[in-house]
């Protein structure tokens, strides 16, 4: 529970201001001791892989928004340690959800391939409307950034112009609507040209000016270039996501043409970049997972509820397929109970301040009297503060007067408790507050990391116990079960701690005492059991 308290404090000050808060908390702190620490710590760890500074609060909110249509909810078959830990939270979720404070978030986790597949299936629906080959519709869709409505609107208004404009068909005097007609259309020079690769002897390409025997490529327009130039040209355009056209006219290369020229399925790349620009344009509904190298995209169909989240100071947390949790609003990792604004402010401050702070900390010392930051840029250790004229020793930060001639004494090693006391008494308040919280924040980030490791170790130890140490399955199961029950209890307890309403706190006081007592007893029992296992030699400690 130490974690619970210290983690919430930096972000929500109203816990501190609340007079009941201390009352509620003190009992635990009294009963807390170091040996119990390790056991309670596990509870804070769930399935998260990379997310730092998580605590149980985060989970509750997080899951409250998750929906039943969620894919992973069905995947509970493998009873790993991780899924075991996440179970108790789900129970809380249901409770929380029934209160119905915030609307649920309906979202799906996608990848560019998924989105492309969706587009293709939509294409099937559109096929009867257009009555042209799928490849051509794909071009139209790509050109219109996958915006069906605009495409259909323009299509009904001026379909022939559109076909020419996008480069599906050529500009001809006779209006060509059907594909056969198009294929038959002679090009400008009057020679019928076939779309595709041909082999020409001593072909002079006007792009690279090479005269050689080479493969060439051309569309129906007859603009023919050597395959190398075409490859370079296409390669250059793939990342744009725009429709690639013939180098000399607006006739478009279809995916199949691109693949023929490149010799492999490069059109996939083009489609992916096209989808990416689609996501860019619809960044209200689609968000990339902000984690490095994560390819997941979260699609939120209905963004109307987001305003409600902001209003209630909640944050719409989502989880991608790789179990990365982040806030849909601001893109930061889960940051409950702080809302997006607070988080943003904190991150900004931390970024800005930490650099200043690092410099100040490493280059300056505070005047022991007035607290002004002093940078020593030369000279001896006899310092005189320029703002309050206080004379002191740079080494020990004590008054200079007693130093006299024997100032070398303070370079000798002594227990620096004294100087610590003197230090930081007159610090500027804001800086002090900030550094305090920054340190707290950092420490917790570190402990969160360590705890996660610990959780993993314990999980693997339990498994090892079952497999190697000849402990029967039932006994092993007993241990896992016990930890699980303890987890649940701690989760319940932390839920109680989140009650902000003073009246509610009084109401739940008894429940709280019961719960904390229960947790404590349970913990001791478990520890005793562990000790027995060790003492009786059933288990041997390994590294």
């Amino acid at each position: 529970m130490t974690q619970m308290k210290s983690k919430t404090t930096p972000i929500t000050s109203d816990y501190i201001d609340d007079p009941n808060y201390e009352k509620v908390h003190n009992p635990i702190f009294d009963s807390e001791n170091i040996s119990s620490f390790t056991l309670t710590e596990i509870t804070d760890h769930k399935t998260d892989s990379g997310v730092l500074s998580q605590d149980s609060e985060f989970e509750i909110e997080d899951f409250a928004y998750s929906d039943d249509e969620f894919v992973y909810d069905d995947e509970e078959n493998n009873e790993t340690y991780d899924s075991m830990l996440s179970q108790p939270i789900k129970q809380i979720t249901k409770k929380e959800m029934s209160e119905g404070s915030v609307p649920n978030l309906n979202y799906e986790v996608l990848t560019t391939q998924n989105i492309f597949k969706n587009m293709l299936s939509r294409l099937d629906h559109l096929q009867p409307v257009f009555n042209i080959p799928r490849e051509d519709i794909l071009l139209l869709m790509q050109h219109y950034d996958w915006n069906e409505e605009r495409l259909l609107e323009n299509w009904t208004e001026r379909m022939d112009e559109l076909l020419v404009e996008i480069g599906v068909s050529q500009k001809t005097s006779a209006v060509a609507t059907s594909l056969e007609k198009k294929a038959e259309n002679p090009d400008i020079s009057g020679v019928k040209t076939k779309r595709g690769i041909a082999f020409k002897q001593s072909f002079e390409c006007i792009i690279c000016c090479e005269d050689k025997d080479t493969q060439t490529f051309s569309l129906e327009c007859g603009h023919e270039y050597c395959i190398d130039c075409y490859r370079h040209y296409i390669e250059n355009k793939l990342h744009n996501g725009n429709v690639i056209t013939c180098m000399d006219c607006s006739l478009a290369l279809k995916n199949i043409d691109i693949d023929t020229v490149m010799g492999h399925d490069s059109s996939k790349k083009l489609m992916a970049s096209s989808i990416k620009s689609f996501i860019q344009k619809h960044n209200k509904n689609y968000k990339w997972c902000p984690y490095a190298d994560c390819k997941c995209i979260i699609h939120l169909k209905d963004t109307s509820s987001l305003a409600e989240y902001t209003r209630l100071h909640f944050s719409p947390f989502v989880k991608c397929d790789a179990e990365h949790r982040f806030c849909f609003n601001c893109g930061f990792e889960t940051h409950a109970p702080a809302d997006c604004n607070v988080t943003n402010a904190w991150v900004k401050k931390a970024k800005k301040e930490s650099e200043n702070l690092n410099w100040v900390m490493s280059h300056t010392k505070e005047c022991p009297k007035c607290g002004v930051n002093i940078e020593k840029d030369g000279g001896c250790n006899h310092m005189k503060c320029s703002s309050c004229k206080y004379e002191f020793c740079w080494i020990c930060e004590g008054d200079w007067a007693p130093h006299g001639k024997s100032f070398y004494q303070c370079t000798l090693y002594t227990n620096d408790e004294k100087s610590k006391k003197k230090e930081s008494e007159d610090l500027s308040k804001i800086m002090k507050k900030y550094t305090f919280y920054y340190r707290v924040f950092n420490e917790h980030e570190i402990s969160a990391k360590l705890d996660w490791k610990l959780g993993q170790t314990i999980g693997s130890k339990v498994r090892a116990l079952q497999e190697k140490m000849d402990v029967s399955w039932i006994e092993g199961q007993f241990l896992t079960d016990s930890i699980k029950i303890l987890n649940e209890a701690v989760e319940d307890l932390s839920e109680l701690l989140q009650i902000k309403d003073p009246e509610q706190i009084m109401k739940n006081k008894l429940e709280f005492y019961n719960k904390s007592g229960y947790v404590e007893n349970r913990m001791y029992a478990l520890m005793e059991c562990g000790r027995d296992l060790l003492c009786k030699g059933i288990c041997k400690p390994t590294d």
Partner: protein
Amino acid sequence: MSKTAQKRLLKELQQLIKDSPPGIVAGPKSEDNIFIWDCLIQGPPDTPYEGGIYNAELHFPKDYPLSPPKLIFTPSILHPNIYPNGEVCISILHSPGDDPNMYELAEERWSPVQSVEKILLSVMSMLSEPNIESGANIDACILWRDNRPEFERQVKLTSLKSLGF
């Protein structure tokens, strides 16, 4: 890639020497570097630029002709489509992906089949018909639109200067 570019540029140079369009002279600035060209462009007749001869530099990228070159007037001249630093802003010098508004048609954009000759011809036509809607030099745009005589006077002055008067 830069080998292709060199080859292509040499070819274009030969073409230009053999049969250069009236009013245009162009060629590499020095023998060591074929990627920077000097051009002399004659002001088209019946325009304020008539009688002037303007110096411009063409900077070719290493992946020419996939990417378009840059054309910079040295010194800069007063024109709605020429930035104050001399850089020319016309559609043929942009690749199709560059224009987010799709303002310019794809055919008018840079593609590997365009050439130095075509660029310089476009510049000549740009000198006679400025495109006010996508202006590079806003002051010149306003002057051109609102006070044509003053615009012409200033252009004449610069062209006289360019000839050393």
